[in-house]
């Protein structure tokens, strides 16, 4: 069953058409990956779904809510991790998690529950008592990922979740996302690292120049384009679209 439906999504900045009619669906409990090169329209798509940008045309519905009509209701069910996100440098990690949890929690018990889950996901231990300003890039990213997942959103939108991380931290973040989906949440993620998307995603969509070229499970796409990995799939898909 599709929880997110994107139909004919267009987004223009003046003369520039960033999205030219994007269509895809995300099912409940699946990780859906958008892959494409820089400037393909991945981040714009995610920003529209995250209610940061208003679509120029098309429709986005999530669990029956129309994004354009009710963005605030939409925000209660989603969480968004931007590619270049930061946390408040003067707050302690622990306080940051609590600050964000309060927006979603209905009572104090839920705040505690979310924060406790956030501590677990971040795996930062005692460093959560330190100010965010003292964290490394990897630690900040883990904190932000914990923030995005701790409230168990119906849809987590993750833009380049391992952006700027070293190999070890990237592996840990991927593992966390994979494990978390088992609890029933859906994930829409983007990456230009196609191997990462192949590892994480149940289904992927290939996006280039603001258009979806193809979509399916990684295996279906590899079979269709007779390729060993998604990088070759993408190359072949771009070639056949010309």
């Amino acid at each position, binding site marked *: 069953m599709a929880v997110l439906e994107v139909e004919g999504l267009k987004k223009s900045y003046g003369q520039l058409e960033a999205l030219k009619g994007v269509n895809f669906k995300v099912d409940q409990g699946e990780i859906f990956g958008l892959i494409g090169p820089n400037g393909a329209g991945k981040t714009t798509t995610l920003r529209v779904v995250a209610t940061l940008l208003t679509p120029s045309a098309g429709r986005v519905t999530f669990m029956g809510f129309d994004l354009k009509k009710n963005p*605030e209701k939409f925000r209660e069910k989603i969480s968004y991790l931007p590619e*270049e996100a*930061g946390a*408040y*440098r*003067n707050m302690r990690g622990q306080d940051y998690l609590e600050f964000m949890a*309060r*927006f979603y929690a209905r009572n104090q018990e839920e705040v505690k529950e979310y924060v406790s889950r956030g501590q677990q996901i971040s795996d930062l231990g005692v460093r959560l008592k330190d100010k965010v300003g003292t964290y490394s890039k990897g630690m900040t990213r883990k904190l932000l990922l914990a923030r995005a997942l701790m409230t168990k959103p119906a849809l987590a939108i993750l833009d380049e979740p391992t952006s700027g991380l070293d190999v070890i931290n990237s592996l840990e973040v991927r593992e966390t996302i994979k494990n978390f989906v088992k609890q029933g949440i859906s994930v829409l993620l983007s990456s230009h690292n196609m191997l990462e998307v192949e590892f994480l995603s149940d289904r992927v969509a290939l996006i280039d120049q603001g258009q979806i070229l193809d979509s399916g499970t990684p295996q279906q796409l590899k079979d269709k384009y007779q390729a060993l990995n998604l990088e070759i799939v993408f190359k072949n898909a771009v070639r056949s679209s010309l």
Partner: protein
Amino acid sequence: MKNFSHLLVKEIKELVNKQLIISLAMMLLIFGFIGNVTKKEMKKAIAKQKIAVLDLDRSELSRNLIGTLNMASFIIEEQSGEKEEVIQKLRQSDLGLLVVIPPGFSQEVSDFKPVEVETYSYLRSISISGTRTSEVVKALLDTTNDFLSNQYLKKRLPDINPAEIKSPIKNREFIIVKDRMAEGSSAAVIGTLYLQSYLLPIILMMIIMYSSQMVITAIAMEKQNKTLETLLTVPISRQAIALAKMLAAGLVGLLSAAIYLYGFQMAFSFPTDELSSASGGLAPILKQLGLTIDTQGYVLFGLSLFLAILCALSIATVLGVLAEDYRTAQSLNIPLVFLILVPYFISLFADINTMSLPAKILVLAIPFSHPFFAMQNMMFGHMGMFWLGLAYNLVFVTVMLIWTTRIFATDRVLTMKLKWGKKKVVL
């Protein structure tokens, strides 16, 4: 509402950081120190002045003159010896003034010939007490001349009071404000009003400047630290985000201004004993002239100030959205500061009502101008001007708040930026 107060607390905590607390504490310390030193200097300046007198005449008249000076505000330290020796000796002392009564002083006075009394001022610093020397010389000469002319007049016209001859015209001064009239000194009334209100423009300027700078910085820092995008996707309305930032900046700006003002008062307040007694004496006159503000007046003034702060905050919020980082935010704040300084200086040094019409319109088009002139307008009965200012600010605030919340509700909060190279705003 729960989320709004939660966000408001966070915004206040972000603004009241270690840097702000340290800078305010340092400012209080520095102002306290300046105040301490200045007050000591002023006390020295106000205290009775010690002067040296060399009486080379040694006559009854010269002794009487020294006695008169002693009874006036001088402490006399008499010198003896040759003039050059005394001048040389005093170079090593802390005395600032030497008065030399020449030989033959009494004789010259008796012959109604002009007498030359020499004064030597020793300049050792440019402190307040140091600069008092010229005033002391003038006071000394006035006292001396008064003494001598009284002597002449008493000798020639023993039955008449010398003061009546010297000032035959007496003046009864009346002040008229609109349809009210009272007897009193206009200079004293204006002086008292000025002293009572000299702090008001400073308070206004500080509150508006602090608040606007805080909100610009708060938004710019969200952008610089890449926290804005996340904040915009949490379940709280965009209007609430904008309002929380404005309200927090307004409150912290108000607090900072109050602390700044306290420090300012510590550093630059005058010894108020004489001033307060003077204004206390003038209080009935001020009341009679309607130059006092009642509770209703203060409420109206508060309203005018509140609207001006909202104007500043809404402009600053838009400027904050235009800024990409903290540095750009500081640059964008400069034109706003200039706009605040215009009514500040005009309220201190000029009369808005006597300015040319175009200049007046330009000044009053600045929304922060109105509270600067609100008190004056209320006191002098220019209520039309006051209400017009209030209405203008209300319209301005409404338009700006609608625009600001619209910016926050759309993509523009992320895409709007100032392009310095092309010198145009991309909306």
